[in-house]
């Protein structure tokens, strides 16, 4: 059960039960849909970007605990950050959940997102954890297509 406790940490369960920034942004500059066909996770992500800064970010949708809490924690994490930084965070998060090595500094930079380290023991769940992030990259590239998690 220890790997499971590692995966389903209290923070993750909490964000699954009460996802933060769980709403539609009527006024938004960027938007994308994400879909994980394997388990039917669907999410819709909205961003309000001004002067290169993420002023507001929110999502709606339905999914498993990992994908919901990942989206919730991601929105909290990114609010107030610059768009320019997001690619780097995406890469670091991806490294974290796939078990690639991260420098202590990079890990610290991910803040609360470090709770997703447990995902690396569950390769089939990487898609769940990274769905929100793939959707984010699509939204920022302003493509209209639905994000698929293919890694």
């Amino acid at each position, binding site marked *: *059960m220890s*790997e*499971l*406790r590692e*995966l*389903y940490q209290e923070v993750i*369960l909490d964000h699954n*039960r009460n996802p933060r920034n769980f709403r539609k942004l009527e006024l938004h500059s960027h938007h994308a849909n994400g879909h994980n066909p*394997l*388990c*039917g*996770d*669907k999410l819709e992500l909205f961003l309000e970007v001004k002067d290169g800064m993420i002023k507001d970010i929110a999502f709606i949708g*339905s*999914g*498993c*605990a*990992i994908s*919901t809490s990942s989206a919730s924690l991601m929105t909290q994490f990114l609010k107030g950050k610059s768009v320019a930084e997001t690619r780097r965070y995406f890469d670091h998060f991806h490294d974290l959940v796939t078990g690639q090595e991260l420098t202590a500094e990079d890990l610290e930079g991910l803040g609360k997102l470090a709770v997703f380290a447990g995902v690396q023991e*569950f390769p*089939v*769940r990487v898609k*769940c954890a990274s769905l929100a992030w793939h959707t984010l990259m699509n939204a920022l590239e302003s493509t209209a297509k639905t994000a698929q998690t293919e890694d």
Partner: protein
Amino acid sequence: MFDIQNIRKDFPILGIEIHGKPLVYADNAASTQKPQQVIDVISDLYTKNYANIHRGVHQLSQRSTALYENARETVQKFINAESSQEIVFVRGATEAINLVASSYLDPLLEQGDEILISEMEHHSNIIPWQMLAERKRASLKIIPLLENGELDLETLPELLGPKVKLLAVTQMSNSLGTINDVSSMIRQAHAMNIPVLLDGAQSIAHIPIDVQALACEFFVFSGHKIYGPTGIGVLYAKKKVLEGMRPYQGGGDMILDVSFEKTEFNEVPYKFEAGTPNIEGAIGLATALDYVSELGVANIDKYEQKLLKYATVQFEAIQGLRIIGTAACKGSVISFVIEGIHPHDIGTILDMEGVAVRTGHHCTQPVMDCYNIPATTRVSLCFYNTKAEVDAITGAIKKVKELMG
């Protein structure tokens, strides 16, 4: 009569551990495990009997051909077809349906025609018809689902209109477990001169099949869902129907005489088996069918029904758990949802307990839409599962609630 411990010994994989726990394999609707007899016959083929079939005059080719053609007869007897010429070996149920769509229905279908299917079909019995309908500007008509997972057969007389060129329906739902009253559906379709394709991918392993009694024009199933290898399946079609169909793929073995001007096609079923077929698959499948016949499909059905009843009672007692698909006549499939916990999380936690189940939409997205759920967790049992395993699954589900609650 049903010595479960001895039966389990025939399936070596059932003895392994997953994450340090004894494997509880409850994903049989997706694919079944293979008995030693099937594993051995494939190994024997390659160590003693293998060569290409229908070709050489040499001894090995003759042996291999005999094994392959005997396999066809085993299939014929298993589903009680009139002739082994009515048995076409294909890759699986999916290919069988695509074959019927392309070789039977395509030439017949005209603009404005209809293909009747049901809301509980597996994607494999939706997409081939949808693709064909689109190409021919025909349309799909759908027999709707009722809340309990049965088909609303009261709609059938109206749906079986003069434009319907085929009724294609599953005998047993892979996601709900529902066993459909196909005899009545076939009777009604035939009264309107509408041919019927039965998707037997699930039913084949659970209920006795007699295609002559059913009188369906087509019956399809996959080998791997009845304890045989993957990559082998069967299209049964009435001989007259089969003879009227155009070839599916061109190539070797499906011809009698070839010149660059003209080709004379082989007789059925060879007309539909272009190229070197899945020889080991056919032989493995026949061995699996022999294995099942020895246990007796009726005995299997009886045992599985008891197990289903037991599991249903156990699962229903878990607070917050709701079973999706509560038809009066069901095979040993239990799909469920738990309030507030996503099936994918349930699947991961069960896996850590050694319990293999399927989570997701089970290739039946319209069914999920009908119940307004994204996915379910599906426990699908068969004759090698035990009450003790059902208890282990129940215990694992309780752990899910503990961990996620």
